[in-house]
């Protein structure tokens, strides 16, 4: 079998997905056997014009991580789509927007104002802001345009596969590598994780979910054997796809939903809200108001990783 051409690219990303590929450790040599890497800015020095020079569809698989939040990222996403047979949204940012998509509770003007003017360490009396085009003594310099709204990869190009996770766990990455090596990828549109929720995978004891108070993680020391939701700690397990190995739960911390919504759920945040409200055992109007007050940041908690793929997508300013 001829070597595959593999591209890895990062948009509005932290680099964790690239590290995740390396966390396959010695199995990376199997990847090197299987594929020639034609783009990986973190590791190799291929530039944008190398990709431009390639024939359309000549890249077999492109693993694209990171959300899209500026013009350069959107342009490269489109370029890579053109040059690739298969696009994979790799990691929660590319799949759902991820943490950067929390930026959808604000916009460019507010972000710029905070970063360049308001921040207490700033020394910017001339109110200088970064510009998409600026004349300096020697010539003109350019920067990409910063968008108001963070987008998922599928908002700008067609995507064949989704690998959720922040970052995707090693066993799922190896599953994909194996599928590539044996030419046995699942049908396009597939999400490479479990078809069930995290609760199904979670090893804690689950009894009846009936709570009368919400606790924030630092307010209590949870019982490590018992379901966290049953202890009044908001855990997004019921509205989150499984397949991550329940690693956060094992560290005695609640799920924050990085694997995205489970099968059949359109909006992860709304689903979690509904689930949480269902298990609250309060009837009295004043008690309801009290427990609602204890959920201190519903939008930022239920949509922690999923703003770009949510129904409302962003805050109305």
């Amino acid at each position, binding site marked *: 079998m001829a070597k595959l051409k593999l591209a890895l690219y990062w948009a509005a990303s932290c680099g964790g997905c690239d590290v995740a590929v390396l966390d396959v450790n010695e199995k990376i040599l199997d990847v090197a056997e299987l594929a020639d890497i034609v783009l990986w800015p973190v590791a190799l020095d291929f530039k944008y014009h190398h990709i431009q020079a390639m024939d359309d569809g000549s890249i077999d698989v492109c693993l694209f991580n990171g959300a899209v939040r500026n*013009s350069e990222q959107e342009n490269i996403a489109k370029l890579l789509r053109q040059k690739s047979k298969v696009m994979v949204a790799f990691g929660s940012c590319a799949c759902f927007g991820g943490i950067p998509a929390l930026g959808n509770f604000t916009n460019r003007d507010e972000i710029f104002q905070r970063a360049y003017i308001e921040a207490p360490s700033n020394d910017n009396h001339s109110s200088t802001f970064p510009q998409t085009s600026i004349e300096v003594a020697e010539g003109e310099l350019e920067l990409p345009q910063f968008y108001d709204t963070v987008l998922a990869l599928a908002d700008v190009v067609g995507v064949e596969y989704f690998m959720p996770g922040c970052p995707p766990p090693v066993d799922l990455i190896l599953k994909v590598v194996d599928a590539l090596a044996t030419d046995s990828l699942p049908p396009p549109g597939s999400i490479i994780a479990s078809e069930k929720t995290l609760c199904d995978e979670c090893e804690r004891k689950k009894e009846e979910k009936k709570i009368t108070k919400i606790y924030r993680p630092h307010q209590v020391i949870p019982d490590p054997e018992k379901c966290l939701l049953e202890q009044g700690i908001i855990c997004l397990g019921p509205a989150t796809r499984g397949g991550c190995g329940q690693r956060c739960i094992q560290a005695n911390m609640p799920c924050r939903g990085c694997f995205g919504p489970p099968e059949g759920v359109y909006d992860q945040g709304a689903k979690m809200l*509904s689930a949480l409200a269902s298990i609250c055992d309060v009837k009295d109007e004043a008690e*309801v*108001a009290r427990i609602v007050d204890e959920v201190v940041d*519903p939008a930022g908690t239920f949509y922690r990783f999923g703003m770009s793929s949510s129904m409302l997508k962003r805050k109305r300013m």
Partner: protein
Amino acid sequence: MNKDGFEPKIVGFCCNWCSYRGADMAGTARMKSAPNVRIVRVMCSGRVDPVFVLKAFKEGADGVLILGCHPGDCHYAEGNYKAARRIPLLKKMLGQFGIEDERVRLDWVSASEGDRFTKIVNEITAKVKELGPLSRDERGPNG
């Protein structure tokens, strides 16, 4: 028709056993009310998944009304209590999305309360008219 010409579109989820019958009663008694509420009949206010409300806003609604049986009278015993927990939490969350509190209203209307139904419809229509249309801009002016 108001002076500005803005006529809000409001989706109204009414439960089969109480509020939908109340709406029906208002109709047969020819009670005058604003025409802005489009009614969707559900079996119980507890059936209203928060995602319905989001979808309504996404698809162009300026307001959403959810009407159920009075607490204690739910045909399914507990359904309206679930709505009573979900909708306030949803409204709090919608506030974080810039969707004003008055755009969503949960209330209780019995089958014989045609007048109450009319009053609530008129109130929410007036409130939402005042707030203006809900922005459907999913990208913002920059990009």
